[in-house]
């Protein structure tokens, strides 16, 4: 049994994958707790797709795609707010427009860039087992920044999430908080994409947080439970992936979904 867990760690790529999976398992659900309770799942999905041009640009320019994805994610997160305010459109509509436009731009860049060789499947489904040391350093940096942001803005985030109008009356800080939150969301998506890919990063963002929502009462407990469940799903998924020769992203997603199904069956919280 011990061999099941320890033997794979003799390989350097597996140690990096384990660190990567823990970072994904903690950070995506921590921010995901806000995504689930603020109904921002579409925003999360859109950001995950919208960073594609940045990643492709990274491949073309020979920069680590995780690093290249950061400014794209941040720019799109801020653009969504600006477009919905300026155009007077709903946030969902602005997200729909920008998400499709950015993803299309990424695909167009991929098809025209003849000098690079990119495995589309890796991009869409993630390649945790092939994660580079640079990507791990980027993920660690993002983790530190996002945890600091969540800690510093905790009370304002609670206020703005529960009662956005009441929080806005208290001052312009609410706008800053919303922007910073979207930037943090874009950052953790960049971590998640490396492990689970553009499509399945949503599973790590939403599923453990939604599971925690069903199991605990208060928001802070929900964040902690979500991070624990996310880590369990990510690490279990990684080992399943290694031993059963499955891609890591789908394995993590299936484990997280199975835990969610159990929580639905035995849930404590009554539907709101």
């Amino acid at each position, binding site marked *: 049994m011990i061999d099941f867990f320890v033997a794979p760690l003799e390989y350097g790529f597996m140690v990096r994958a384990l660190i990567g999976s823990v970072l994904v398992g903690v950070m995506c659900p921590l921010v995901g707790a806000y995504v689930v*309770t*603020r*109904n921002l799942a579409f925003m999360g999905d859109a950001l995950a797709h919208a960073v594609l041009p940045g990643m492709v640009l990274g491949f073309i320019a020979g920069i680590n795609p995780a690093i290249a994805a950061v400014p794209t994610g941040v720019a799109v997160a801020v653009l969504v707010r600006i477009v919905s305010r300026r155009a007077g459109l709903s946030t969902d509509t602005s997200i729909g427009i920008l998400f499709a436009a950015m993803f299309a731009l990424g695909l167009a860049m991929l098809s025209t860039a003849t000098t690079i060789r990119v495995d589309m499947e890796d991009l869409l489904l993630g390649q945790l087992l092939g994660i580079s040391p640079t990507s791990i350093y980027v993920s660690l940096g993002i983790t530190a920044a996002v945890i600091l942001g969540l*800690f*510093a*803005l905790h*009370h*304002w985030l*609670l*206020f703005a*999430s*529960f*009662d*956005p*109008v*009441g*929080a*806005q*009356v*208290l*001052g312009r*800080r609410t706008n800053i908080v919303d922007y910073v939150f979207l930037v943090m969301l874009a950052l953790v998506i960049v971590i998640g994409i490396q492990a689970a890919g553009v499509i399945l990063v949503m599973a790590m963002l939403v599923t453990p947080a939604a599971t925690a*929502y069903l199991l*605990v*009462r*208060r*928001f802070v407990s*929900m964040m902690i439970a979500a991070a624990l469940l996310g880590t369990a799903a990510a690490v279990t998924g990684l080992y399943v992936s290694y031993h059963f020769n499955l891609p890591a992203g789908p394995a993590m997603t299936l484990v997280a979904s199975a835990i969610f199904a159990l929580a639905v069956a035995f849930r404590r919280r009554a539907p*709101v």
Partner: protein
Amino acid sequence: MNTTHYPHAARMSLQDVTVEFDGHKALNGVSFDVGAGTLMGVVGPNGAGKSTLFNAIAGLLPVRRGKVTLHRVDQGNGALAYVPQRESVNWRFPVTAMDVVMMGRCCRLGWCRRPGKRDRELVDDCLCRVGLWDHRSALMTELSGGQRQRVFVARALTQEASVLLLDEAFSGVDAGAQEGLVEVLQTVRNEGRIVLLATHDLTNLAGRFDQVLCLNRRVCACGPPDEVFTSEVMEQLYGAPGVHLTNDGER
């Protein structure tokens, strides 16, 4: 009112406040004064501009013309506290009564500061004052409509606000709970604060409020409840001269 002993006392003055949406005047030349320690009911039909007035006072909407002036003793942050309509709150967000009351300390806490002993004591004290100490650990979704409103009032108290704006605070609150809420608001008023409460409910206004503002995009009347409800004012408000109030304030 002598405001010397009340650090949160305030006076408010609106002069010719006009708010427009796409060239259409939602509020037209609204002017009135509210003295320290006043509990004012804001009444009017649907679309009269009650929420627009509150949004303009709170700075959520740009004022096309005129100005809102607030004179207060305490010069700290968070002069205005807004109790929103039920539908603008995210009830899916799992917070307890205590969490919500602590939100009132946001403007006094810095970015990275955690709530200290004084903040926690103030939260406990305000929960006691609105009679919800026993419900401090209840989720907001587990509280009744009246209890939720009292939690928001407690949040305004921890914020150390001078002006409380309650938009449709009686909506979804039964008659008994309305009385409980009014009692809490009267104690808040007695500390020199201004409380403005928008309501559709015209019953028992005389017993509840010091002043009533009758609004229909402009000020139709403003004064003590037993003076403002003339048949002329009711016609301006509801367009029906036959609508009038009995001595109990019932239409």
